[in-house]
């Protein structure tokens, strides 16, 4: 019998640990009542953005997508509309995060990046709603009010991320970005 062995690297452990953190935050958030469906602070994304700054885009993308799948499993929502909404939001915001890496750090803090990601998250979700869940043009009416909440939560999450990044010692300057 040949046993299959995976080589677990340090990066794997980091991704796993950070994903657990994101899942935990997501579960805490899910236990709070929301005044409207779709209006959520998205505190799990604090982890994703923190990872983006400290570990780079590839790790952040892994953490974000793993979080979506793992939360889907944990909440029993895997491959339901809720799950696909979550996935659409995650993919859209990752796309914008990839672009946002090009923003100069001197002028744009984590607040900008967080706001842009939150707005993209909503845009991705509303696109999915328009294309699949409620395929009528009126679905676009959701966009602007949800964007407003995204802006507010994006700013608050961004401030938290910036505070977190400033509190921690800077990573090794020569090797990491």
């Amino acid at each position, binding site marked *: 019998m040949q046993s299959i062995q995976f080589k677990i690297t340090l990066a794997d452990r980091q991704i796993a640990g950070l994903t657990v953190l994101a899942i935990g935050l997501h579960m805490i958030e899910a236990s709070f009542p929301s005044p409207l469906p779709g209006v959520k602070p998205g505190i799990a994304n604090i982890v994703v953005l923190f990872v983006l700054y400290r570990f780079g885009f590839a790790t952040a993308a892994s953490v974000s997508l793993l979080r979506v799948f793992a939360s889907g499993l944990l909440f029993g929502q895997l491959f339901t509309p809720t799950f696909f909404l979550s996935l659409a939001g995650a993919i859209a915001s990752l796309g914008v995060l990839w672009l946002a890496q090009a923003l100069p750090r001197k002028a744009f*803090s984590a607040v900008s990046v967080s*706001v842009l990601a939150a707005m993209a998250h909503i845009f991705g979700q509303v696109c999915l709603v328009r294309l699949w869940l409620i395929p009528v043009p009126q679905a676009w009416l959701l966009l*602007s009010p949800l964007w407003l909440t995204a802006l507010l939560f994006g700013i608050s999450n961004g401030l938290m991320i910036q505070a977190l990044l400033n509190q921690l010692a800077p990573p090794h300057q020569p090797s990491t970005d």
Partner: protein
Amino acid sequence: MADRGAWSACFTMMQWLARLKRGFQHIDGLLVGDWLTIALCLGLILLYWPEASLGQAKKCQIRQGGQVIGVYDLDQRRRISVKGPLGVSVVQIQQGKVRFSQAPCHNQYCLQQGWLSHAGEVALCLPNQVSIILLGERGFDSLAY
């Protein structure tokens, strides 16, 4: 004694403020780009805000049980009676607006919808199977491109 209480409350409040400031001092504040981003996002939000993007309706369509009763111009003063399974619903058109003014249904949600004037708005009376749909150009079809 009251004075001392007030002073002590002031002191406690200042202590709390100092603690709050200490807690937030590692936030450097927003950078230029952040304000730019926020302004840009606010602009987008205003641009696509439903009220701004809904055009004024010119006509309304009234349906009962899947049948189109008729399409009516909103530039007139008119009451239209529509017969449904529960009785007669009355639709009132006046000054470019339209509403249900009387309905035989139990919950009266259709009346609570109030006056409608924007293209794409809808008022329904499910029990009596009557609907009003406002027709007209909508503002933001360009979003689809």
